């Protein structure tokens, strides 16, 4: 039905049309109806919307969606509800433009450092674009913090963004999780935490009806949302960081470790000296996770021996047998 319209011939034309549409809607004192838009918006002297009315309509609807996709808020309103039922459109300057509470140069510097977090991810373009606009607000550049830390996470991935959106809208998610075995999970996501260098999802497992923690790097592929938005309630007293802390503190223990004098310096710097004996020193060292502390002790090979607790001693003993016997 629609003939090939000239205005769709190149991306340049479409860009011009979108910019002129933004400007027309921004400059409108009153809501503009579609027919007014078709009349006034031009590209290089010719009407921007051409062809049959249906194709103009379709083109305009698409443009409107594109602008909204760019985050531009298009307001819809009637000209006069008594006489005219045709909707009108406009863009309010207060909604088009970035109006931030005042940012300090230091805050702007912190934002540009933080943005390095997304370096390889799909969100890198979004953050860079956001930064350019934040850098167009007339805030003087601050270079005193150029030495600030850079962020490099191998695990900054798209699931982080998808899960944050799901939590935002209380939408359940499903994904393949590589735990003890690979299994499919259906989760009501409660929160995300960054702990010890890794991102974790906390949420209620539909099968166990209990809150569980999932390491994001062990999620295979992308998570997908299932069901409607707002399909569960996050308990009001739930705090992701409290949950992680409670899991950790259950395991807070002190190990008694015998260390060959003059060695294991990093290890013993975290502990308290208990006694000396024959070329060795005994230390009490606090630890959270048995497995990761065992790995720390094993790093020192024959220079460190765990005396207690027996669970830790036995675990190390067993690990050494495995490696020595192999």
């Amino acid at each position, binding site marked *: 039905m629609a003939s090939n319209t000239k205005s769709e011939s190149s991306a340049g034309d479409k860009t011009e049309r979108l910019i002129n549409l933004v400007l027309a809607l921004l400059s409108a004192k009153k809501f503009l109806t579609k027919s007014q838009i078709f009349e006034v918006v031009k590209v290089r002297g010719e009407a921007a919307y051409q062809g049959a009315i249906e194709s103009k309509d379709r083109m305009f609807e698409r443009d409107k969606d594109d602008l909204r996709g760019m985050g531009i808020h298009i307001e819809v309103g009637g000209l006069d509800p008594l006489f005219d039922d045709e909707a009108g459109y406009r863009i309010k300057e207060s909604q088009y433009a970035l109006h931030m509470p005042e940012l300090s140069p230091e805050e702007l510097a912190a934002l540009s450092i933080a943005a390095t977090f997304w370096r390889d991810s799909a969100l890198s373009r979004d953050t860079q674009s956001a930064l350019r606009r934040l850098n167009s607000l007339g805030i003087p550049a601050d270079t005193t913090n150029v030495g600030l830390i850079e962020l490099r996470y*191998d695990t900054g991935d798209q699931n982080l963004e998808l899960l944050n959106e799901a939590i935002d809208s209380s939408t359940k998610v499903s994904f393949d999780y590589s735990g003890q075995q690979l299994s499919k999970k259906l989760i009501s996501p409660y929160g995300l935490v960054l702990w010890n260098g890794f991102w974790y999802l906390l949420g209620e497992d539909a099968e166990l009806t209990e809150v569980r923690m999932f390491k994001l790097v062990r999620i295979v592929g992308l998570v997908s949302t299932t069901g409607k938005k707002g399909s569960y309630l996050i308990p009001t007293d739930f705090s992701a960081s409290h949950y992680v802390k409670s899991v950790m503190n259950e395991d807070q223990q002190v190990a008694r470790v015998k260390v060959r004098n003059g*060695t294991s310096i990093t290890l013993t710097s975290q502990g308290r000296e208990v006694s000396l004996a024959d070329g060795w020193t005994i230390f009490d060292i606090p630890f959270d996770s048995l497995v990761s502390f065992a790995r720390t002790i094993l790093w020192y090979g024959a220079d460190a021996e765990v005396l207690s607790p027996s669970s830790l001693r036995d675990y190390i003993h067993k690990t*050494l047998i495995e490696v020595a016997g192999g």
Partner: protein
Amino acid sequence: MAETAIDRTKRALDLIPYVLERPGISIQDLAKDFAVSEKQIRADLDLLFVCGLPGYSPLELIDISTDDDFVDVLEPQLLDHPRNLTRREVVALVIALEALAASRNSSDPLRTMITQLQRKLQSILDAPVSKPEVVNTEADPHGVLTAIEKALSLNCELEVEYLSAKSDSRTVRRIAPSRIYMQNGSGYLQAWCYNSEGERTFRIDRIVRADLQENPQSSENHVGSGREVAQSIIVSIRAGAREFVERHQGICTVVSVTGEETILRVDVEDTNWLLRTLIGYGSAARIEEPAEIATQLSVMAHEALALYTR
């Protein structure tokens, strides 16, 4: 991949306020800042030049001058203010700020600044976004980060006291810091080390003291890095040792996957580091090749085992 009209529209709209803040900016700098070619920036400016308000008389068009490749916006029409941030952009920045917070101690003033900044970003949205959380792990136990950052921005040297796990020693070194970064939960400082006359990487949590030196970094070229040559070790990994791969993605290449076993090539400069790390994974990690490295691991385990079998 061809650029969409949407991406181009965004950039064109954003160019105007960006140039207004930087009158006379060069095409070259604009290309760099917007991560596109100079040709593309020229095309964008040409396009903006013919856009404007309905009526499209000379008074209603956007006016830009590009004399000698230096750009000025003479008439922005209504585009003098930058485009608002989208919800997606706010989310991305809020999450990134949370990751930045994780690099600081809970008492660090930057933490307070980050919380305020997150609030400001949230305030431009109709409804706040949910925010991930950082569980406080003290990334900087000895409070040396501030001194390091100061040294970097003033281009000064540092005297540091360092606990080396690798050589199991406590040393005092004079260093010229070049870069700091957080990688998977640990902070690292890259610096020229005068004591070892080479580029070295230090774990920030193992620097127990960092003192700023008054003299600026000497301009002599830090060349002749004492870096060792990387060696490839073939390691087979089972589920229990997956964390090894997750923590050290940069040096691991998957060779093959058979059933529950993954064969990896691990490129290391220091085999001692690899042995000390792998011993902690027990039977979940096994060195396949070269045989002498596998033997070294077994010997190391035998020696330690003697402590437990007395």
